[in-house]
């Protein structure tokens, strides 16, 4: 059958059932917006979590009798280990300053010399920021000569590890539910628009139209509804993102892929829903 005829028929379906088409496109758009918002949310959450993890650091206390040169030497050695990112060397003097901040008193108030050891604050590279890998790095650092003790927030790290798993689970679950809800709502909407035209399908069959002849214009229509719905959803998403950026959170992340995914999603849903719905009325002889 002629491609252009099918396309024309599908497009005509738009004007033939204008109200139904408007309703469907709006519904498609809002359901897709839902999915889009969820994708934006996930993306930003991923960034945030990355931000938190990257703040994990090891505190390496060196023997207190080491001088600055020796300390910096050890810093260099640590730097060579796999997974180690930036290192911040804290000399005895800096440690004294830190003490004052922490306890509201200078060490020199009670003592003549500074008893505090020099230390290094070691950041961990991306991809190495899990409990087990950090444990290994910590052990390697501990074996370096001149290192007294390696301290890091084991508990915090394991809490983060556990929480992130948990947050991923929650977000994944919520996302799945959202997507399922959106799909069901879309499918239902398109089913209803075809339900409203079941008589027409019946008549077409009586006039000798084959199933595929009847189905194709509906598929084109579903495809178009998915497409225009997705465009509308993209528009609304774009607006929402810009409003959020202006008013609330200027660093909101977004990727062009999300817009593309929405269009793809819309097309697939439009096609599948209309295909399934039409088939329902084609089954009977």
């Amino acid at each position, binding site marked *: *059958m*002629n491609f252009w*005829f099918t396309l024309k028929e599908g497009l005509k379906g738009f004007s*033939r*059932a204008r109200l139904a088409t408007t309703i469907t496109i709006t519904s498609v758009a809002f359901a897709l917006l839902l999915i889009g918002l969820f994708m934006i949310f996930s993306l930003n959450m991923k960034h945030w979590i990355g931000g938190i993890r990257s703040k994990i650091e090891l505190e390496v206390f060196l023997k207190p009798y080491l001088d600055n040169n020796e300390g910096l030497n050890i810093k260099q050695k640590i730097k060579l280990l796999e997974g180690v990112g930036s290192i911040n060397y804290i000399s005895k003097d800096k440690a004294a300053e830190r003490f004052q901040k922490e306890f509201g008193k200078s060490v020199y108030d009670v003592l003549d010399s500074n008893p505090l050891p020099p230390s290094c604050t070691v950041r961990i590279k991306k991809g190495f920021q899990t409990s087990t890998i950090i444990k290994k790095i910590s052990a390697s650092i501990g074996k370096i000569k001149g290192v007294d003790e390696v301290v890091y927030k084991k508990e915090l790290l394991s809490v983060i590890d556990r929480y992130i798993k948990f947050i991923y689970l929650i977000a994944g679950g919520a996302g799945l539910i959202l997507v399922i809800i959106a799909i069901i709502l879309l499918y239902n909407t398109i089913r209803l628009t075809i339900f409203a*035209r079941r*008589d*027409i399908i019946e*008549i*077409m*069959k*009586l*006039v*000798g*139209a*084959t*199933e595929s*002849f009847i189905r194709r214009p509906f598929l084109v229509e579903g495809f178009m509804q998915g497409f225009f719905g997705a465009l509308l959803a993209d528009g609304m998403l774009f607006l929402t993102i810009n409003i959020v950026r202006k008013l609330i959170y200027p660093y909101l992340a977004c990727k062009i892929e999300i817009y593309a995914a929405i269009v793809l999603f819309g097309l697939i849903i439009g096609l599948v829903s209309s295909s399934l719905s039409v088939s329902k009325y084609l089954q009977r*002889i």
Partner: protein
Amino acid sequence: MIEFYNVSADIDGRNILRDISFRIVQGEFAYITGPSGAGKSTVLRLIYMDLIPNEGMVIIDKYSSAKIKNKEIPILRRRLGVIFQDFKLLPDRNVYDNVAFALRVTGVKGAAVKRKVLRVLAEVNLGHKRNRFPVELSGGEQQRVAIARAIVNNPFIVLADEPSGNLDEQASFEILNILEKINRQGTAVLMATHDNTILKRYPHRVIKIKEGLLNK
């Protein structure tokens, strides 16, 4: 060409026709009459295979109700011209597209569609209303659209269910003249009707049905 062998038909478990046997040969013109609810429309449904008999067999052209596949039914229907009692026009298409639809399903394209559609619309006196939608037509005009759609395909048989029910005498006679004309060109006609005036004025073979039984 059309053969009913001891056909019984149920709808929703209700027996409508019982033990019907008759035959219509190529190029024949026959009426099917009987009181309201006798089963005339049901006989036609059996012919366009909207209904499959519970017992017996219906043979249309080379298709048998016992063996026809779902996929073949549209092929069969395209070769029939059916005027439905309730018209069954597509409410979302105008007159032209309604008639053209029957051609397009058969794969006819472009200019050929236009030529054929305009010719049959002229034949039923509706050329000037080709852009109207069914709701914008009177009952008789809708009936004439249904007639145009039935004959546009050059079917081998026209099944006409009360084609003059909504037409005045003059228009009825015109329709009958059209049917007789295509009948003379070799198309068989099977027409359900109540109209005694027509039966008398255009005498042809009459198949009588009463309460689901053939009335010889």
